[in-house]
């Protein structure tokens, strides 16, 4: 079983998920708090566009992915705050634009075979160079969460309450939009554009189901995310299922188990 660790791509996969797995559910909790879970999907589809563009122009996909995701994330917040457009509307606009343009660029790039990797993630797509970018991105997101955790909670509960507590809501909003985009960008190659949302949203849902405090919800979400990611690598390696799909499937199993446990607990 341990021969799996002889492969560099597996070592890289373990290293990368060790950093993205704890971050994704924390951002997921904040997105759920803000009724913004759809945000993850939109950014993931914009990520799909970035990867399609990188195939077409043959440029570094991760840098483009990060820049495009951050640009869209800030634009959505601006449209919501300044132009008062409904959040779902502007998110849908970017989601469908992302998908439509991705298909156009992938078709013209002649690399339609890469679509599965882009959509569902892969053990092999993360290059050595990507690892440095992913770890740097994870470091930035991690520092942001540690520094602003309490302010983020307050901001997510109610923006006006946060303002009255002396929190600069406009700054937090922009930093949050930027780091959410960054965390999604650095996770897309592993999880895939279609499935990154599952690592952000399903662990908090499971934790919310069984925990009796926000602190425990965060801790349990991180543990579930790490467990499913590590076991997902094994599943992907031995079964050939794309990595994102493996991790998501394990999360779905955890979700069902949490319901069964709770059902027995209250019987």
């Amino acid at each position, binding site marked *: 079983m341990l021969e799996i660790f002889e492969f560099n791509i597996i070592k890289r996969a373990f290293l990368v998920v060790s950093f993205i797995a704890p971050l994704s559910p924390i951002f997921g909790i904040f997105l*759920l708090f803000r009724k913004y879970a759809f945000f993850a999907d939109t950014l993931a589809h914009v990520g799909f566009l970035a990867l399609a563009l990188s195939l077409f122009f043959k440029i570094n996909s991760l840098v483009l992915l990060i820049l495009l995701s951050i640009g869209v994330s800030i634009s959505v917040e601006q449209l919501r705050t300044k132009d008062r457009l409904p959040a779902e509307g502007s998110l849908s606009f970017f989601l469908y634009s992302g998908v439509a343009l991705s298909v156009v660029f992938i078709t013209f790039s002649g690399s339609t075979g890469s679509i599965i990797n882009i959509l569902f993630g892969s053990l092999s797509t993360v290059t050595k160079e990507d690892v440095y970018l992913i770890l740097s991105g994870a470091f930035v997101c991690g520092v942001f969460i540690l520094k602003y955790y309490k302010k983020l909670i307050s901001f997510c509960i109610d923006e006006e309450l946060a303002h009255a507590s002396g929190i600069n809501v406009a700054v937090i909003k922009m930093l949050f939009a930027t780091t959410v985009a960054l965390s999604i960008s650095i996770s897309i190659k592993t999880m895939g554009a279609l499935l990154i949302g599952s690592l952000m949203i399903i662990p908090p849902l499971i934790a919310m189901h069984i925990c009796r405090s926000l602190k425990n919800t965060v801790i349990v979400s991180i543990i579930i995310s790490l467990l499913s990611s590590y076991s997902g690598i094994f599943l992907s390696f031995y079964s050939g299922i794309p990595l994102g799909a493996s991790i998501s499937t394990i999360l779905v199993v955890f979700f069902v188990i949490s319901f069964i446990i709770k059902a027995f607990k209250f019987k």
Partner: protein
Amino acid sequence: MKAISLTNVYYSFDSIFVLENINLEIEEGCYLGIIGPNGAGKTTLLRLILGIIKPHRGQVLIYGQNPEDYIKSEPIGYLPQRISQTIYEFPVTVEELVKSGYEKIKKENLDWALDVFKISHLRKKILRELSGGERQKAFLARAIASQPRILLLDEPTTGIDPYSMEELLKMLEILNRDFGITILVVTHDIGTFAHEARCILCLNRRVVCLGEPQKILKDEYMAMLYPESTVFPHKNA
């Protein structure tokens, strides 16, 4: 000492004035009830004081500072009219709610805030498991946990039963009398606050009148404040 002052304040929304020529000076330790019909600008007034919105003309000062500058150094206790229901979907405990928003909060401040509203025994309870009145007390405890000098409450008695309301009023009275906190309460519940507030501000886009409840809550003023009404709410007082 002036806690809050508004000088010649105008605020418009989509080029319609919501507040016009507001001149107010609120002394430290005042307990002010703000009444007026729907759309009178009561909530807007609180949001101007908090610095969430800026006046289009005029000046708002908190202890001589702009609200944005004041709030950086000292939080203002605030209870908004509506709070997103999403918080009840999460397992947020009373203690976590009270602590939220404060970078560092001393344990004695937390205990004091919970004690004032008599919810210490609920500190580990999840918000969604509480009654409407208990939730309101939890949010009020959050508002006072930093021991602010100013407390702004936007319709704090909405959705709570008469017993909880009476308890809440007693607690606000204690905060004002014993701790010297300046309290501004926006309310439609004139009958209840007529006995509690030391001063009543009648607002209908402009300051209609301002003074002690027994002087203000008279038919002539109420007719000015609610010109289309024939039944005045102060009659329940």
